[in-house]
């Protein structure tokens, strides 16, 4: 419908009345990622109920997370916070013996101003387990930003180089032993491997990804002779990467702006601002940017990307020319929209909870460039969207696909509008060249399914639907 194509992206902001997950949900994937951790969410029944229902089956698998459920006595300060937390943390130490306890502050601890950051160092000294504090609450953050608050707190715990060999008393012991054990046999391999890399300053990547994706992305960089010195977070808390002044860091996810800020300001690292490695176009741009910072001429990326696109053709046929609407709830929206536009889709609106234009600058530039190259209008980026207004716009636009939360998915489907549940993008493996197919598998699923049903005359299943 739009005739004139706006040159630049437009940014708007609505009321913030939208549906998303509470940021404490990050414990669900972080406890699995950091294998020796224990996450203690200090909050109320409301928080517990959310976790229990949102995490579904996982709750039964003896998870390494729990609620410290606040009672009326805690709220009115009849009970002493320090004593209460000490009692629970000792219980956790006895039952699970983790290498780190992560306290997740919630809305309630904010409102009653429980000084978690103050209590943690004292208790840490007393019980001998590191305690990391992250304020992942719904007052300030949305969904995936929870991971950002945890990683920002973890960034402060990464060892500095001088401690690497001697290692610190608490967190280092196990580390040192592991190194001793593996030293003998790995020595040769290590020197051999070193020669495969270009000489460049140390690079640490940040963002929690499933291990297979970590291996995959590290390997992509290795092909360019780039060595990944470490990941924040690592598989174990005791293996957090060394961070020294002058190290280079790069984010793999769009919602990690606090972590990036912490790494720059507190750890004096240099941030490589790049598009995120989501989709083959994003992955290529991400690698190119890292290469360019290290003065490396990237090898074979053209063919690699072309090959991936060629393999996606069956899926691309399904979505080319179709329109997508992002309601916005997990901050992956800009990168996903950029990828889908490159795939040949159009996008009228990208809803997003929070837009850090500095941290996402390279990604926004790539989005704009992509729109220009594909000859489609630039989308409107709607920060803090209003779900009610969005639904009116969806009725008006009748997009071919709406990417939305579960609260709206079934009602939209019942009105004949295809939807994809947005949370799946945060749990599926979507990074790197290899996983581009998985993104399209998700995106095309409703289209493929509904294609099978289209002749049955069952698309509108609501009486007197407003559509």
């Amino acid at each position, binding site marked *: 419908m739009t005739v004139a194509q706006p040159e630049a992206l437009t940014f708007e902001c609505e009321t913030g009345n939208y549906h998303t997950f509470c940021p404490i949900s990050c414990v669900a994937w972080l406890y699995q990622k950091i294998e020796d951790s224990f996450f203690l969410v200090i909050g109320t029944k*409301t928080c517990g*109920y959310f976790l229990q229902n*949102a995490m579904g089956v996982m709750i039964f698998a003896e998870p390494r997370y729990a609620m410290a459920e606040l009672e009326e006595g805690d709220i009115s300060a009849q009970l002493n916070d320090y004593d209460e937390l000490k009692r629970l943390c000792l219980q956790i130490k006895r039952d699970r013996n983790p290498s780190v306890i992560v306290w997740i502050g919630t809305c309630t601890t904010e409102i009653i101003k429980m000084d978690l950051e103050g209590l943690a160092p004292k208790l840490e000294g007393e019980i001998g387990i590191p305690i990391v504090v992250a304020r992942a609450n719904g007052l300030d953050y949305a969904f995936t930003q929870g991971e950002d608050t945890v990683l920002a707190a973890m960034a402060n715990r990464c060892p500095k180089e001088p401690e690497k060999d001697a290692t610190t008393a608490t967190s280092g012991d196990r580390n040192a032993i592991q190194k001793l054990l593996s030293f003998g046999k790995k020595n040769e391999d290590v020197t051999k491997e070193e020669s495969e890399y270009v000489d460049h300053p140390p690079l640490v990547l940040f963002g929690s990804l499933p*291990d297979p994706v970590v*291996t995959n992305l590290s390997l992509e960089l290795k092909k360019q002779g780039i060595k990944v010195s470490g990941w924040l977070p690592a598989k174990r808390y005791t293996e957090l990467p060394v961070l020294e002044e002058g190290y280079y860091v790069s984010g793999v996810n769009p919602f990690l702006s606090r972590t990036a800020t912490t790494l720059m300001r507190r750890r004096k690292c240099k941030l490589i601002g790049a598009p995120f490695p989501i989709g083959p176009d994003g992955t290529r741009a991400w690698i190119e940017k890292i290469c360019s910072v290290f003065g490396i001429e990237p090898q074979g990326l053209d063919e690699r990307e072309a090959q991936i696109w060629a393999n996606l053709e069956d899926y691309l046929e399904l979505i080319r020319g179709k329109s997508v609407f992002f309601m916005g709830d997990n901050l992956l929206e800009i990168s996903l929209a950029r990828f889908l536009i490159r795939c040949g889709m159009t996008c009228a609106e990208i809803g997003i909870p929070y837009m850090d234009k500095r941290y996402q600058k390279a990604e926004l530039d790539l989005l704009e460039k992509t729109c220009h190259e594909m000859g489609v209008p630039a989308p409107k980026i709607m920060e803090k969207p209003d779900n009610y207004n969005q639904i009116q716009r969806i009725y008006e636009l009748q997009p071919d696909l709406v990417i939305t939360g579960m*609260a709206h*998915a079934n*009602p939209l489907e019942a009105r004949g509008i295809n939807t994809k549940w947005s949370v799946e993008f945060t749990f599926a493996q979507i990074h790197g060249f290899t996983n581009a197919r998985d993104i399209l598998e998700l995106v095309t699923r409703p289209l493929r399914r509904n294609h099978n049903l289209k002749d049955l005359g069952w698309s509108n299943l609501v009486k007197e639907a407003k559509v």
Partner: protein
Amino acid sequence: MKLAYWMYAGPAHIGTLRIASSFKNVHAIMHAPLGDDYFNVMRSMLERERDYTPVTASIVDRHVLARGSQEKVVDNIVRKDREETPDLIVLTPTCTSSILQEDLANFVERAQLDAKGDVMLADVNHYRVNELQAADRTLQQIVQFYTEKARKKGDLPEGKTAQPSVNILGMSTLGFHNQHDCTELKRLMADLGIEVNEVIPEGASVHNLKNLSRAWFNLVPYRELGMMTAEYLQAEFGTPYVDITPMGVVETARCIRKIQELINAQGASVDYEEYINNQTLYVSQAAWFSRSIDCQNLTGKKAVVFGDNTHAAAMTKILAREMGIHVVLAGTYCKYDADWFKQEVSEYCDQVLVSDDHGAIADAIASIEPAAIFGTQMERHVGKRLNIPCGVIAAPIHIQNFPIGYKPFLGYEGTNQMADLVYNSFTLGMEDHLLEIFGGHDTKEVITKGISADSDLSWSKDAQAELNKVPGFVRGKVKRNTEKFARDRGFQEITLEVMYAAKESVGA
């Protein structure tokens, strides 16, 4: 502070939202931070609801914390009033608003000035009551609100309906099998020649609440939800109520006899004995089932029952009284109403457990080693771990407990469903004997080694490690696809690169 991994009953606001969203054209506005509207996801997913859940949040963020909600809540109420023209907007406090102690009642008053619909504040305290208590209270509050409103306007209808009639109280969204139960109860009332005056809150309009007084009596099928309303209506209009859950053959009969007594006292002259007899002996299969030889094999088998008051109590009685099963332990998580539960079940089981700590129940199950468990989804998982079958009889529940097919727990069809549930939960009688005779199943030893056993391809250490990270249930497929890819292209060894290439080309 309490270390908690799991809870049986949700927080208070969930109860209020369940009531509000059960009514037609009632909207709830939560005073809550971002992310607390998880209720919408549950309703949309579990109930597979086609309509938007009429719940929105007036978001509490950093600014609200600093300066108070000010106009925000009022604006949100008035806005929703314009957008959706609901009959009623229920402002719902959460744990967050409990401690902020803003004057929500004042917001409601101010919003009422501009709103065309009614506005009220749910009277629930997050730290004092749970989901079930809050739901009970909110239903009563709404009924009282509209009764008083009608009285003030002078349009409360006079007198009772001409024919005997009933209000069914307590059917609500996200309730365990509520929709099926509701259909079954309506069918039962039709059989008994009783008009259904109103069903609340599910599907009801607040405009009809003034008619509640016209019913001859109220039926409260669930102990947890509707009692306060029934007591209010009794105090207000002298309407008697029946609070016997018609679950199981004996209890259904008892419920019907109580109904007979109440309506005969008001001038009807009905005799339901013939109906009860006919249903029990010939229509419901449950009585015959308990007499059949199948059920003989269940005699004396040990069971543990755990759930909410209604379902755990009824199940305990069915197992012990109607099937001859030995209920070693019956338990409830409704601690606030524990006396009622103990009184109901104490003669039908060895021990009573009142606790909301899932660990305590799991320990009890492990030490008792029953042949079957009847509990919530939590007990089902305990059963899985201990290899004991479990029938789910109460919330908390998952999506599979919202069946599309007709599965009531109440009334005569409910007794059939219960018989199936119980029978299928225990190892089948004859099978049990055969297992004893032949020394158990031998299927566990049969393991297909798969195509991979003597593969011509070797896997590099890295690739093997990577393969092991693939979730077990698809690992075989990934392995086969990768090897096919490698074979087709003449690779001798499968390295990480080959693996990724395979994935990229075929989505292995």
